[in-house]
């Protein structure tokens, strides 16, 4: 299922080919930058003790997940010297010779009720120690989700950080009929690996700025379906949606507060783009910014006490912070002549944003250190935008252009690994990484 032979040696180009799935709208992963220092792991194929074949190769999914973090590199299957499926079959010496640090073995059995039980175990090879031994119940239908869950468990055991393999991404695709003005916009939700995508809304008018509710059950987004901008909220499980705002002018940049009770947004109802907070319980609207320049793209601090936003008040877009209790404003970004659409890292130490240096040139994704004020550039294609941070802070998904085609890119926040998620057709933009689903 995976051909990852050259994945970690050169650190460049196309390494992993996930077998094309039957869902065409899925995004296919293309690794563009690998990590030479990734820790070698071996994920042995899980033994299937049942009739017929399984819909998913669980070990292969775990390998792909761990490799995609850049922290680990899963040994290609053909390099595995033996195929143990439980602790008693593990010969540590074999794996030491392969210079593997960690080993995962497992088996899947069919239960009488038709469900499946996956048993898996994680070993530290040099210390010859079991780090994790668990079993989970799955069905043929959710085998993929279970593989992501197991990946999360292994990742957390090894790094101390929660995994993001069970999270989702929302994004917009645009298709244009020839060179006509006939566009089709779609809002999709897919697994974090770009697979299992489903369309949750289709429109002939622009869709943008999807924002997850903190419980990951709803999306707020901007739709032009009424002929002008409006913010809508849609429940993912039921598809039920309603129009949240219908103000004159801009109705944009929805950003759900960490407590889920408010949505920060941009409105120009008072004549100019300003940041507001919409209180979902009593539909109260509080105005946050007051400046004749553009103020937009608000994002909440992890503690919900302040907002960061883009403002044109210095003459070009720069990132500012406003304390919601005191109203005190502070400019955060100083390096470069275009800094916009800021998003906090979950620990609040960095702000990820679209950045262009003083000399002009590329629009990159950059990390702004809140302590030092220094800017660190993470992506290097010409037109990168819309950074969205994974809930564990390890990865950022963003939009980039390859030629005239929009694709999604992912870069680790340490900059060590980068991959792309191109769609089969159309432009992909405006990604939003979901919070944890559980």
């Amino acid at each position, binding site marked *: 299922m995976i051909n990852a032979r050259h994945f970690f040696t050169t650190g460049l180009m196309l390494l992993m080919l996930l077998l094309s799935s039957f869902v065409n709208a899925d995004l296919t992963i293309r690794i563009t930058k690998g990590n030479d220092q990734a820790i070698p792991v071996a994920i042995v194929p899980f033994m299937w003790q049942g009739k017929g074949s399984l819909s998913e190769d669980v070990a292969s999914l775990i390998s792909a997940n761990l490799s995609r973090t850049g922290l680990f590199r899963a040994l290609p299957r053909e390099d595995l010297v033996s195929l143990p499926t439980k602790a008693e079959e593990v010969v540590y010496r074999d794996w030491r010779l392969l210079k593997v640090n960690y080993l995962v073995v497992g088996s899947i059995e069919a239960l009488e009720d038709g469900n499946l039980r996956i048993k898996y175990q994680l070993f530290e090879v040099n210390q010859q120690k079991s780090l994790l031994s668990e079993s989970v119940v799955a069905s043929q239908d959710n085998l993929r989700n279970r593989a992501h869950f197991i990946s999360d468990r292994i990742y957390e055991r090894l790094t101390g950080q929660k995994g993001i393999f069970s999270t989702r991404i929302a994004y917009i695709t645009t298709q244009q009929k020839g060179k006509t003005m006939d566009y089709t916009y779609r809002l999709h939700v897919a697994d974090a690996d770009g697979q299992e995508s489903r369309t949750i809304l289709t429109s002939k008018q622009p869709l943008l700025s999807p924002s997850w509710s903190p419980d990951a059950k709803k999306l707020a987004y901007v739709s032009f379906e009424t002929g002008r901008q409006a913010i809508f909220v849609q429940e993912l499980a039921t598809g039920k949606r309603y129009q949240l705002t219908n103000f004159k002018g801009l109705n944009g940049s929805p950003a759900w507060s960490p407590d889920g009770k408010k949505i920060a947004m941009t409105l120009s109802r008072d004549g100019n783009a300003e940041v507001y907070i919409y209180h979902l319980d009593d539909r109260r609207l509080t105005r946050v910014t007051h400046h004749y320049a553009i103020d937009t793209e608000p994002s909440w601090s992890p503690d919900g006490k302040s907002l960061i936003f883009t403002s044109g008040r210095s003459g070009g877009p720069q990132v500012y912070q406003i304390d919601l209790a005191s109203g005190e404003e502070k400019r955060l970004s100083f390096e470069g002549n275009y800094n916009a*659409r800021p998003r906090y890292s979950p620990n609040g130490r960095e702000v990820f944003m679209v950045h262009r240096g003083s000399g002009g040139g590329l629009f990159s994704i950059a990390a702004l250190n809140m302590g030092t004020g220094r800017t660190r550039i993470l992506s290097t294609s010409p037109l990168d935008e819309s950074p969205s941070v994974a809930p564990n802070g390890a990865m950022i998904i963003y939009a980039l252009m390859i030629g005239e085609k929009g694709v999604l890119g992912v870069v680790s926040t340490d900059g060590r690994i980068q991959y792309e998620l191109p769609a089969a057709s159309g432009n992909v933009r405006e990604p939003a990484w979901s919070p944890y689903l559980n």
Partner: protein
Amino acid sequence: MELMKHSKVFALAAVFALVAGCGGDANTQEEVADEITEEVVAEEVHSSDEALAEGMSDAEDQVDAVTDTVLPAINTIYFDFDKSNIRSEFYDVLNGHAAYLMANPSATVKLEGHTDERGTPEYNLALGERRGNSVQRYLSLQGVDASQLEVVSYGEERPAVRGQSSEAYSKNRRVEFNY
């Protein structure tokens, strides 16, 4: 004479751009634009400061002088990168629309603001609106009734031209009159 008339209109529009806060864009030390024309526009805005005092009363006269009531052929005007001030070369186009709208009080127009694809989508929506607002303010100043005008911004969502050349970009930074 003709020239004089125009220069007053130019100055007045520039003042309004300045009052609306677009002057801040032109004033910045962090110039982001890559268009040569922008420097010229910035200078015009600066030099128009003294016109502020005399501007208002003259505006009515200017508009009265225009008698053309045919729907103008040109319905798109263009902007510099990250800017929303109206370039002087488009005052004639706008005056034509103003005359038409005043002669036809029942006509309404959507002013659709657009940007090029560079920069962030939401900032560009705000920038597109700002461009629409600049046109709206200019037209109102000429005497067009506010109820005839509506600004809708599409930001970078609806480019007129595909491609990543500076020429394509310059054609996408625009306000379209949609009657």
